[in-house]
């Protein structure tokens, strides 16, 4: 073995150990997802749309964002919350009461976006309430793990 490769061994051991450690952290993190965690994330996605709607409406009123952007957000929000409805309604990972509540709240968020698509106005107050209800539900799902 050449002198160069011997001198490489020490630093290589250290870097290999560091790489393996990082892989262990990432892999153990990746595997640490309970079913309720997965469901909590779905609820948070719905809550995020409610919050994004609230915030962008506030910014539109201050003329910080153009109407075109809010219209685009409304269209995307309606589509994405519509896609969330099925996994929220059909999941077997949480008790039926939680599932029903999450499904109903998400449906109300979607309705807000659908209404805004017709009227051009987002109800920031109602969306804020829905956001808080969904966040509280996500926290309770996580806590019940």
């Amino acid at each position, binding site marked *: 073995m050449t002198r160069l490769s011997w001198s490489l061994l020490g630093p*290589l051991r250290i870097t290999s150990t560091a790489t393996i450690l990082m892989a262990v952290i*990432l892999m153990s993190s990746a595997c640490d997802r309970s079913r309720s965690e997965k469901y909590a994330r779905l609820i948070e996605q719905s809550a995020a749309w409610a919050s*994004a709607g609230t915030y962008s409406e506030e910014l539109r009123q201050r003329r910080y964002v*153009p109407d075109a952007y809010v219209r685009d*957000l409304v269209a995307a929000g309606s589509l994405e919350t519509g896609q969330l409805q099925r996994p929220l309604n059909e999941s077997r990972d949480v008790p039926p009461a939680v599932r029903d509540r999450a499904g109903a709240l998400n449906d109300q968020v979607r309705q807000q976006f659908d209404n805004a698509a017709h009227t051009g106005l987002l109800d920031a107050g109602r969306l804020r309430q829905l956001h808080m209800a969904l966040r509280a539900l996500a926290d309770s799902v996580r806590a019940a793990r």
Partner: protein
Amino acid sequence: MKTLKKAALGILTSVGSYLEVGSMGTALQAGAAFRFELLWAIALGTICIAFLLEMSGRLSAVSGETVIGAMREDFGFSFQVWPLATQILIDLLVLASEIGGASLALELATGISIRVWAIPVAFLVWAVLWKGTFGSIESGVAILGMVTLSFVLAAWWLHPDWREVARGFIPRRPMKDGAQYAYLAVGIIGATVSPYLVSFYSSGAIEDRWKTSDLTPNKMTAAFGMGFGSMINMAVLVVAAMVLAPRGIVADTYQQAGVALSQPLGRWGFWLFCASLFIGSVGAALEVALDVSYITAQTFGWKWGESQEPAEEARFALTYIVAIVLGIIPSILGIDPLKFTMFSMSMTVLALPIMIAPLIVIMNDRRRLKAYTNGLVTNVAVVAIVLLSFVLALLAIPVQVLGG
């Protein structure tokens, strides 16, 4: 003085072209979901890419060969076909993401769908490549890319808790949703250590006619250019952590993230966000489309060079035209650019070992690099990066399934 000027230009180019749809999207999602906890992934990716760029620049400056050319010479055409096929596939995915990112920036600004914007964006990319030279594209992207510094300004204005920011540089298990944490970490590293950067940088060194006298600017560009560039990406993460995370906006789409700069930068914020996304994406699309031509031409031994007239190198020009046409398909189909980007980042990670492992042999070849072969530090770095790329490739699919 000349060396400093060259280094400054190189650093400016690296900074201006650092941010693109993938790095911006992953940093926004990471900041929104985990605040500062994933800063280490950007730092790690930046160290890796800085080493890889320094090596590929050194190879070109000393031997006058590109990484792809050297790979073909050392391993033969039958070996080279596999990395080529893999990298073309990855490049096409990234190109599609970038065209989608630029189109989405226009959609956010105008409300008109990315399906409509995809073709004008692709036309713009083609026109710049067709009419421009390597130098003009390089400087144009660098100067326009300075708009992305608005994220640094915004991060500074937001006054984050710097101790908490510093803690983000140490990897640790997250408080919640480990699967998404791992998925984002792999995505960030995939977005930062893009194989196209290595082959593009090495081809660029040949286009700019680098010699051994350019090794110092090369080192400075790789270290400081990537270092300052990563600061912009970290600033994106910090802005998302300070603006989006407290509001529970998870930035799953760019529509949600479009307001990230509005709090710190007021009325300018939204437009600067759109401009950063557009310019960053178009700049990267130009680089990736060129890279497809570079690697194809270098593998098959065609004449290549962006500074030549297209008629003189018809196959070279035809290759990027085909790549651009293929790259608009996902946007025309209306596929969300951020979701597509996250997928292409995972695929990038999967292909990383195939692209990087041959560098261990190439960079230690004394016939080619004479006195400029890898030293202890660079050899340890390249072996560590190859190891890391193998680990990430193994993780890419499981984390995509569990956390994506």
